C-alpha cells in the first residue's frame, strides 16, 4: 500500500491552488486544512481524482457555528483515502448568512443526507443539491436549532427556578 505524507498533500494543494490554502494544522495528529470558501469544491474534486491521493470516501461533513468569530459559519469535511489509508479534514469558513456552499452530491452520493442535516440544523444552503429539505426535524420547525442563538425553550418558564429544587 502506498503511504502518504501530510506534507505531500499540503505541497500539492499549495501548488495546485496557490493562495487558497488558508491554514494548515495537525490537531491530535489529524491533518486539517482550511480552504478558501470559494475553492472548496475544486479542492475536493482534485483530492478525489488525483490518482496518488484518491480520497474516494466522504466520512462525514457537517456545519459549525461560531457566533463570536470573525467568520461565523464553517463546513467541515472528513475525507478518507482507501488506497493509502489516509484521512484528512477540510474546513471552509464563510460569513454569509445564510451560508452558501457548493454541493458535493455530484462527487460523493453520500453527501446528500449530510448536507440536508447541515441545512436542517444550521440553515446552510447547498447550490445544486437535488433535494434540500429538513431530514431529522419536523418540517414545521422554525429556525435552525443548532445555531447558538436558537432559543431552546420559553424563557419565561417558572418551574425551572432553583427554589423548586431546594437549591
Amino acid at each position, binding site marked *: 500500500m502506498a503511504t502518504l505524507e501530510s506534507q505531500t498533500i499540503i505541497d500539492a494543494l499549495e501548488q495546485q491552488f496557490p493562495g487558497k490554502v488558508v491554514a494548515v494544522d495537525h490537531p491530535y495528529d489529524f491533518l486539517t486544512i482550511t480552504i478558501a470558501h470559494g475553492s472548496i469544491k475544486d479542492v475536493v474534486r482534485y483530492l478525489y481524482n488525483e490518482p496518488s491521493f484518491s480520497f474516494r470516501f466522504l466520512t462525514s461533513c457537517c456545519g459549525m457555528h461560531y457566533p463570536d468569530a470573525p467568520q461565523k459559519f464553517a463546513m467541515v469535511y472528513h475525507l478518507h483515502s482507501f488506497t493509502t489509508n489516509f484521512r484528512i479534514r477540510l474546513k471552509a469558513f464563510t460569513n454569509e448568512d445564510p451560508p452558501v456552499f457548493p454541493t458535493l452530491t455530484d462527487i460523493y452520493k453520500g453527501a446528500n443526507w449530510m448536507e440536508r442535516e447541515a441545512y436542517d440544523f444550521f440553515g446552510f444552503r447547498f447550490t445544486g443539491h437535488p433535494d434540500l429539505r429538513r431530514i*431529522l*426535524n*419536523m418540517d414545521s*420547525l422554525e429556525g435552525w*436549532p443548532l445555531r447558538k442563538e*436558537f432559543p*431552546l*425553550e420559553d424563557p419565561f418558564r417558572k418551574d425551572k427556578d432553583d427554589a423548586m429544587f431546594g437549591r
Partner: protein
Amino acid sequence: MDVTNENKIPDPFPGTIHQTPGGGILVSKMDQVINWARSNSLWPLVFGTSCCAIEMMSTASAKYDWSRFGFEVARATPRQADVIIIAGTIVNKMAPVLKRLYDQMAEPKYVVAMGACATSGGPFFYNTYSVVKGADHIIPVDVYIAGCPPRPEALIHALITLQEKIKSGMTREQMKMEKPEQSF
C-alpha cells in the same frame, strides 16, 4: 343442593367450583374469563425508539425471558399486537407515527410507558426543541415505569401490573361504553 364456595380454584383463574355428584361445576363470569385470558397472552408491539429498547430486548431474551408471563410473541405489526411498550424517547417527528401505530392496533389495546423519556421527557425535559415531554401527550398510558433505563425486572413488574389491571376489571373502552358521560 348446597352451594359452597369452599372449593375455590387457586389464583389466577377466576371462578369457583360447585361440587356435584360425579364432578364439579365451574362457575365464573364471562368477563372475568375473558380478562384472564387476555391478560395472559399480551402480545407486545416491536417498538423501541432509543436506549430503553436495549433493556426491553434484554427483557425478551433468555436471561429475563418475559415469555414466562405470556409476552413472548413480539409482533412487528400493530394489527396483531395488544400492548405497545414505549421504550425510548419520543421526538416531535416520531409523535404522529406513534399515534398512527396506536390507532392501528385492535381493541383492546394497552400502553406501557417505559422509562423517564416516555413518562415525562426525562433527561430531555429542559432545553429541548425536539422531544415530546411524556408520551401521554399523544396516547393514553396504562402503566408507567420509572428509571433511566428501567431494569428488566422493572419492566416485568410493569407488565405484571398491567396483567393485574386487566384482570381486575374493564378496559378503558368498556368503561366508556358503560358510563359515556364520564371521562377516563
